[in-house]
């Protein structure tokens, strides 16, 4: 199946749907291709998010911007923060008015718009995208980009897994809104997020930024998926014997939980919440209570064991590097939005519990959609294209026998363990990187998949690539800043007040990049 459009949007979460809406508003014909189902797929659809929604009052805006600068290691950019606050405010109001999202009203009659229930938000976004005339391809993961002779991006190819056939979209511009990478950790709603966009982008020569900020871990009741963490602010953490685990906390003490989990179980009770808070929590986050209600646990009175699930760059801040206000990448015709793109511009090296990611998905999606539409108008149609995909599609060697399941197991063994990715140490990172480089070499030379097998093969390749950019960048940041902490380099080094750009596939590289205002 071959389609032609002005703009192709890859993804189906908030960033993708805002991109599709705004590109269509610009008059572009738009195809949106999602790996899963646009409306239920991606982190937001299952999770719901707080949103950085701050009314345009000078004091409130100033406080919002100032509050996170130190946490993020002073790598954010005030001009971008201000733009995102403006854009998010307008778009969320649009969602309330045109999208009829049923925001609650506070006791004093003021509308509350600082958060979005995932299922409700994304089902409305799907309806809006459809009404805007966008062609939605569900269950249609994009597997590689197409480029024109001059190197600009001119569409993408993929596989329709329910229809059982491949597809191609020739487009004037492409927006990558494929989410971050959580390495199939089963963190809430995140198993569709395998970093595909970053691989696709890198194969056309695009760069990444902030990949060292990729060690987010969410708290969940043990053996469950629900990594919603806000309410752990009401928690006390305990050891098996019942004594309090000193220093453990959701904010500012999560690494204590990680360290303890390496050798023993950690328990938790939300025993700081009074009756009113307990009742209100149920209204705000019905999904938070799913595991407890179904396991017969009263989280306010019964101690339950917890785990930490990797959320990689989903709640990290690294991603494809953005080079202008329209969210262009370094490759003409290629735009990036949401978790697929770096979020350092607005929150530097830390986001956890911040609402910044949701605001970024809305804003960057809207900008990318608009600028992709304008770019597409200028290039016109009918360009000759060639396929840009490598690993898993077009092996460089002859040895076959690369087992995708084995590759995934190898990556997971290097990125999921707390004592490798969370509690980072240079020596450990270097050893892990050797394993990952070897995994890449075997994938690149020997993995050849077709048809339905293409999707897991490309996911595996994307995860290996992601992990290598992560650890190469983590080693290049020879200090501790934001979430990129190193046990062997504690403390912030003022001389390293820069971002880290990375890229490359067979040869991975990283270089410092000045923080510009």
């Amino acid at each position, binding site marked *: 199946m071959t389609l032609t459009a002005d703009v192709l949007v890859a993804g189906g979460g908030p960033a993708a749907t805002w991109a599709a809406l705004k590109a269509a508003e610009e008059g572009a014909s738009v195809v949106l291709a999602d*790996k*899963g*189902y646009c*409306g*239920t*797929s*991606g982190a937001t*659809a*299952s999770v*719901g*998010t*707080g*949103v950085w929604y701050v009314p345009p009052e000078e004091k409130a805006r100033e406080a919002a911007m100032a509050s996170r600068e130190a946490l993020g290691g002073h790598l954010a950019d005030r001009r971008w923060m201000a733009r995102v606050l403006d854009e998010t405010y307008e778009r969320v109001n649009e969602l309330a008015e045109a999208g009829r999202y*049923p*925001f*609650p009203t*506070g006791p004093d009659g003021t509308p*509350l*718009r*600082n*958060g*979005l*229930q*995932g*299922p*409700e*938000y994304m089902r409305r976004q799907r309806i809006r995208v459809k009404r805007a005339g966008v062609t939605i391809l569900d*269950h249609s993961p994009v597997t590689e980009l197409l480029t024109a002779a001059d190197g600009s991006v001119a569409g993408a190819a993929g596989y329709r*897994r*329910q229809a059982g056939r491949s597809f191609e979209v020739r487009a004037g511009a492409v927006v990558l809104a494929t989410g971050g990478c959580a390495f199939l950790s*089963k963190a*809430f*709603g*995140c*198993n*569709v997020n395998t970093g595909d966009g970053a691989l696709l982008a890198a194969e056309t020569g695009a760069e990444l930024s902030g990949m060292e900020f990729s060690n987010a871990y969410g708290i969940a*009741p043990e*053996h*469950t*998926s*629900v990594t919603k963490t*806000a309410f752990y*602010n009401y928690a006390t953490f305990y050891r098996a014997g019942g004594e309090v685990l000193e220093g453990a906390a959701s904010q500012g003490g999560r690494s204590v939980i990680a360290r303890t989990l390496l050798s023993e179980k950690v328990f938790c009770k939300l025993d700081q*919440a009074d009756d*009113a*808070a307990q009742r*209100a*929590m*149920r*209204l*705000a*986050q*019905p*999904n938070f*209570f*799913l*595991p407890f*209600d*179904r*396991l017969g646990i009263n989280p306010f009175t019964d101690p339950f064991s917890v785990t930490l699930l990797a959320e990689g760059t989903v709640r990290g801040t690294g991603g494809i590097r953005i080079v202008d206000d329209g969210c262009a990448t370094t490759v003409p015709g290629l735009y990036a939005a949401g978790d697929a793109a770096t979020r350092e511009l607005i929150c530097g090296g830390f986001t956890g519990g911040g609402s910044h990611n949701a605001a970024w998905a809305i804003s960057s999606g809207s900008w990318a959609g608009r600028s992709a539409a304008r770019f597409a108008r200028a290039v016109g149609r009918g360009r000759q294209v060639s396929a840009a995909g490598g690993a898993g599609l077009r092996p460089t060697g002859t040895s076959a026998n690369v087992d995708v399941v084995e590759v995934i197991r190898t990556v997971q063994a290097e990125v999921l363990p707390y004592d490798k990715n969370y509690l980072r140490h240079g020596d450990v990172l270097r050893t892990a990187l050797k394993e990952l480089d070897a995994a890449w070499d075997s994938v690149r030379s020997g993995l050849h998949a077709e048809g339905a097998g293409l999707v897991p093969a490309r996911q595996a390749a994307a995860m290996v690539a992601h992990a290598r950019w992560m650890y190469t960048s983590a080693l290049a940041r020879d200090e501790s800043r934001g979430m990129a902490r190193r046990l062997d380099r504690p403390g912030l080094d003022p001389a390293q007040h820069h971002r880290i750009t990375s890229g490359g596939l067979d040869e991975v590289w990283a270089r410092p990049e000045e923080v510009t205002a």
Partner: protein
Amino acid sequence: MIELVSAEGCITCDKCIEVCPTNVFDRAADGLPVVSRQSDCQTCFQCEANCPADALFVAPQTHPLPEGSPEHDEEHLRRTGLLGSYRREIGWGRGRTPGASRAIGPALSPTGPPLIS
């Protein structure tokens, strides 16, 4: 993981097959959804939220449950009110008020706004 498809309750609308982000279901010859790839289930509860007949149950565990578990017992799930409970709580379904409109949670700091998600 997805643990129950109620053959009795299902109205064969295909919704779960369509919405599952990780493509866990197939459609059987009789139109009923079958769990063909349970190991791909990401325990996101989306199928359950979207089933108009409350005919699905997702257990919170991210590993499959042994045969004979109460989570496979429709009668038990109905009696305990668990079947269809997510849908009820988010206010989806005819005659219900969307949960989003009453989602006023606690404020996490004395000066902060209440959480609404």
